C-alpha cells in the first residue's frame, strides 16, 4: 500500500490513542465512534496539526511522521485537503479568494481562473465574490470542499462535514460528494458519528473507541460480523444477547438462549459449554405471516412473543417484541415496512412469530463480566 | 519620621480612648510641603500641651488656595507664599489676613558622589559648569512654586541663570525638587533649607545655606478660614508662641518678629 495512506498512532496523554489505519487511493474510510472517542484527533494528527507521542504516518510513498526518528512534516508539506466541521473558511475573503488561497503552488496569474473552475465544479458559479457569511451552510461546505481539493492534496480529510447543515441539504451534499469522489484518486477519511452516513458514503468503516481502532471493514461486514459486543453496540446494534454454546455441526453451531435452542452460523472456535455473546442484525429478523401462502416451510429459530413497543420512523416501524416463556428473555427489536403493520395486525399486545435467520446469527466472545 | 508618626498616632489613639465621646474631631489643617517635618513636630507638641489634635495635610500652597476657593473644609492654611493667603483674605474667605509665621530659606544640595561641593556655595556650581560636569540641576517649578522663584532669583543673582537654565529639571513642588536633587540622577539642586535639614535628607548628600539677601524673602503666612473651630483657633495661637517658634527655627526657618502682620 505504498500509494495509500498508512497511519499508526500511539500515545497515552493528553488524549489516549492507539490507531492503525490503511486507506487505499480512491478509497473512502469512515472513522466512526462516539463523541470524545478521538476521531478528530486522529484527523488532526494525519494533517500534522497534532503531534502524537509515537507513531508513523506515510502517504503516497512519503513519510509524514516518524516519531521515533523525530520526523514530523508540518501541515504545509503534507498537503492534505482538510474540510473542518464548521468549514473554517477565511471570513475576510470572498469564496473565490478562499479557494485561491489553496493555490499557492499555482502560477499567480492562473489562480483566479483555477479557483473559478473549482467553484463551478462544486456548483457555486456566480457566487465567487460572496463573503462566507453571505453563503448558506451548504454553500459554505462546498467552498470548503473546493478549497480542500484545489490544493491538489495527497489525502482528503473530512471532519463531520455534514453535521452543520439541514437534512435536505445534507442528502444533496452526500450525492455531490459521491460524484466528486469518482474522479478522486487519493485516500479519503470521513469522520462522522452518523452510522447511516458512514454506511452510505464509505467503502470501509473504522470503529474508534477511547482512541482505539477496534475494527475496520466494509460497512456490511461490520454490521453483520462485529468483532465484539462493544463494536456491535457502537454500531447501534440492539439485538445483542448472551447464550451458551451447545455444540457444532459442519454447517451450523447450536446455542442455548432463554430456554431455547438456536441455530447459528458455524463458529467452531467456541468450545461447547462456553458463554458467548450473539447478535442478530435487525435485517436478519423475519416476521412470519399469520397465514403464509403456500405450504409451511421449515423456519430457522422461530421465536414467539408479544409486541411491547412500536415506533414509526419514516416508512418503517420499529417493533419491540418480548419473547414468550421465561421472563428473563430480553426483548428483540426488528423493523417492518409500515404497510405490513395493518396486514399482519401488529399492535401492542399482539402475538407474533419471528424467525432469526441462522445465516445472520453471529457469535462473539462475551464481554468480560 | 516613622517613629514620630507612630508617636503621633499613638498619642491620637490614647486621646481617643481617653475621651471617646469627644464632640470636636481634629480640624483639617492645610500646610505647604516645606513644613512637613517642622509642623509634624509642632502638632505633636501642641497635642502634648493641650490634649487637642489637628489633622495635617501637606501639599502645594497654590492647590490648597484653589481648593479653599472651591469650599474645601480646611480650617487653617499655612502657605509657603503669603500671596495666596492675602488673595484668599481679599476674597473674604479667611477670617483676616493672618500672620507671618516663618520665612523660608533655600539651600544648595548635592547628593553623595556629585562633583558639586555645596560648601563653596554657588561658586562651586560655576566651577562644575565650567568643567562641563553639570548635566541636570533640580529646582521647583518657578511658574508656581515660591521656592522655585527664590531659586531662580538666587541663580540670577550669582549670574548663573543663563548657564544653568538649559540643565534644569523642574520639580512639581519644592519637595519633589528636593527629591530630584537627592536622587543621584542630578548633580544637585536648590531646595528648601527646612528639607535639607530633615533627617531623611541629611544622609543623602551635602548642603549649604544660601544667603537670604540673594532672593526675595519667602514670607510664609497663615490664616484661619471662615469656618475655623476652637481647636484650629487654639493651634493658630499656639503656633505664634515661643515653643512653636523654636521648632520652626530648629527646622531651618527664619522667624519674623513676634506678632508681625
Amino acid at each position, binding site marked *: 500500500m505504498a500509494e495509500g495512506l498508512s497511519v499508526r498512532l500511539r500515545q497515552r496523554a493528553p488524549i489516549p490513542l492507539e490507531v492503525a489505519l490503511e486507506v487505499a487511493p480512491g478509497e473512502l474510510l469512515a472513522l466512526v465512534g462516539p463523541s470524545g472517542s478521538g476521531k478528530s484527533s486522529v484527523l488532526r494528527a494525519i494533517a500534522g496539526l497534532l503531534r502524537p507521542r509515537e507513531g508513523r504516518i506515510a502517504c503516497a510513498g512519503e513519510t509524514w511522521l516518524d516519531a521515533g526518528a523525530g520526523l514530523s512534516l508540518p501541515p*504545509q508539506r503534507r498537503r492534505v485537503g482538510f474540510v473542518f466541521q464548521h468549514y473554517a473558511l477565511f471570513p475576510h475573503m470572498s469564496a473565490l479568494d478562499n479557494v485561491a488561497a489553496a493555490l499557492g503552488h499555482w502560477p499567480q496569474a492562473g489562480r483566479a481562473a483555477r479557483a473559478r473552475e473549482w467553484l463551478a465544479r462544486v456548483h457555486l458559479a456566480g457566487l465567487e465574490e460572496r463573503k462566507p457569511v453571505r453563503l448558506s451552510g451548504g454553500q459554505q461546505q462546498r467552498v470548503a470542499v473546493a478549497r480542500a481539493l484545489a490544493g491538489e492534496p495527497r489525502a482528503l480529510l473530512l471532519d463531520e462535514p455534514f453535521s452543520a447543515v439541514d437534512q435536505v441539504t445534507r442528502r444533496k451534499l452526500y450525492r455531490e460528494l459521491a460524484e466528486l469522489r469518482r474522479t478522486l484518486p487519493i485516500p479519503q477519511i470521513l469522520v462522522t458519528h452518523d452510522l447511516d452516513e458512514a454506511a452510505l458514503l464509505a467503502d470501509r468503516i473504522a470503529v474508534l473507541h477511547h482512541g482505539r481502532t477496534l475494527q475496520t471493514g466494509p460497512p456490511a461486514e461490520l454490521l453483520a460480523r462485529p468483532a465484539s459486543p462493544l463494536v456491535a453496540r457502537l454500531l447501534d446494534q440492539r439485538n445483542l444477547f448472551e447464550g451458551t454454546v451447545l455444540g457444532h455441526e459442519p454447517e451450523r453451531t447450536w446455542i442455548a438462549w432463554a430456554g431455547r435452542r438456536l441455530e447459528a452460523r458455524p463458529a467452531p472456535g467456541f468450545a461447547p459449554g462456553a458463554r458467548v455473546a450473539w447478535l442478530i442484525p435487525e435485517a436478519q429478523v423475519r416476521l412470519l405471516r399469520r397465514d403464509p401462502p403456500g405450504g409451511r416451510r421449515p423456519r430457522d429459530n422461530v421465536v414467539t412473543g408479544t409486541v411491547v413497543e412500536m415506533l414509526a420512523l419514516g416508512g418503517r416501524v420499529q417493533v419491540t417484541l418480548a419473547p414468550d416463556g421465561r421472563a428473563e428473555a430480553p426483548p428483540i427489536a426488528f423493523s417492518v415496512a409500515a404497510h405490513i403493520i395493518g396486514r399482519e395486525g401488529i399492535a401492542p399486545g399482539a402475538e407474533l412469530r419471528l424467525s432469526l435467520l441462522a445465516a445472520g446469527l453471529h457469535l462473539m466472545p462475551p464481554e468480560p463480566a | 519620621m516613622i517613629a514620630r508618626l507612630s508617636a503621633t498616632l499613638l498619642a491620637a489613639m490614647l486621646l481617643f480612648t481617653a475621651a471617646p465621646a469627644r464632640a470636636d474631631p481634629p480640624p483639617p489643617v492645610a500646610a505647604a510641603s516645606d513644613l512637613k517635618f517642622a509642623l509634624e513636630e509642632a502638632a505633636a507638641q501642641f497635642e502634648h500641651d493641650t490634649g487637642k489634635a489637628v489633622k495635617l495635610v501637606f501639599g*502645594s500652597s497654590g492647590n490648597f488656595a484653589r481648593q479653599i476657593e472651591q469650599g474645601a473644609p480646611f480650617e487653617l492654611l499655612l502657605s509657603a507664599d503669603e500671596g495666596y493667603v492675602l488673595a484668599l483674605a481679599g476674597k473674604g474667605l479667611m477670617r483676616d489676613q493672618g500672620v507671618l509665621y516663618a520665612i523660608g530659606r533655600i539651600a544648595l544640595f548635592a547628593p553623595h558622589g556629585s562633583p558639586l561641593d555645596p560648601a563653596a556655595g554657588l561658586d562651586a556650581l560655576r566651577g562644575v559648569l565650567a568643567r562641563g560636569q553639570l548635566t541636570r540641576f533640580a529646582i521647583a517649578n518657578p*511658574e508656581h512654586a515660591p521656592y522655585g522663584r527664590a531659586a531662580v532669583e538666587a541663580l540670577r543673582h550669582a549670574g548663573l541663570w543663563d548657564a544653568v537654565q538649559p540643565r534644569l529639571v523642574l*520639580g512639581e513642588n519644592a519637595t519633589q525638587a528636593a527629591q530630584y536633587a537627592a536622587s*543621584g*540622577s542630578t548633580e544637585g539642586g536648590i531646595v528648601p533649607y527646612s528639607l535639607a535639614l530633615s533627617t531623611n535628607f541629611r544622609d543623602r548628600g551635602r548642603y549649604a545655606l544660601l544667603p537670604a539677601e540673594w532672593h526675595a524673602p519667602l514670607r510664609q503666612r497663615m490664616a484661619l478660614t471662615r469656618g475655623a473651630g476652637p481647636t484650629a483657633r487654639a493651634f493658630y495661637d499656639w503656633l505664634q508662641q515661643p515653643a512653636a517658634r523654636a521648632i520652626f527655627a530648629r527646622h531651618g526657618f527664619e522667624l519674623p518678629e513676634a506678632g508681625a502682620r
Partner: protein
Amino acid sequence: MDWQALRLSIALASWTLAALLPLGLLLARLLAYRRFRGQGWVEALLALPLVLPPTVIGFYLLEGFGAASGFGRAWEALFGHRLVFTFEGLVLASILVNVPFAVQPMQRAFEAIPREVREAAACCGMGRWRIVTRIELPLAWPGILTALVLVFAHTLGEFGVVLMVGGSIPGETRTIAIAIYDRVQAFDDAAAGRMSALLLAISLVTIAASYALTRRLGRRDG
C-alpha cells in the same frame, strides 16, 4: 498655548506607538497562541500598569532609570547621557506603562480567530509568515487598531508617571498634560482651559475616528 508641549506629546505618543506596534503584536500573539509555564504570571505582570497607581510605576522608574541603578549606569555608559529627565527616558516609561493597552486588545483579537481557521490556512499550504499577514493580521485588525488608538490617546493623556519622572523640561519632558498642570498651578486658567480643550478635542477625534474605522472594517467582513 504651549505648542512645544503639544508637539512633544504627539512625538512621545508616536514613538510609543512605533515601539509598541511590533512589540505588542509579538507579545499578544505569543500569549494568544502559545501555552507555557508561568504564563499567568507573565500576563499579570504585563497587566500591572493598569492597576498600579502612577506613583508606584514612577517610583520604580525613577529608581530603575537613575544613576544609582545598574540599568541607568549601563544606559549612560552606552549613550553618553542619563535616562532620567530625558525624552528617551520618557519614551521608555511610556512604553512600559502602555504595554497592557497595546497587548490586551491585540491578544483578544488574536484569540478571537478560531483555531481551525489558522489550521485551515496551514493545510492550504500557507507558510507561517503568510498566515500572519494574510489571515491573522486582517482578522485581528480591528483589535490592533483599538490598541493603537488606546496607546496614542493614553500617552497624550499620561500625567502621573510623567510628573514623577519627567522634571517638566520644556521641549524635553514637559508634555501637554504637564504643561496644563503647570498652568493650573500658576493660576493661568485661560491657558489651561485652551490647552485642555485642545487635548479633549484631539482625544475625542482620535477615538471617534477609530470607532468609525472599526465599524467600516466590520462591515467589510460582513
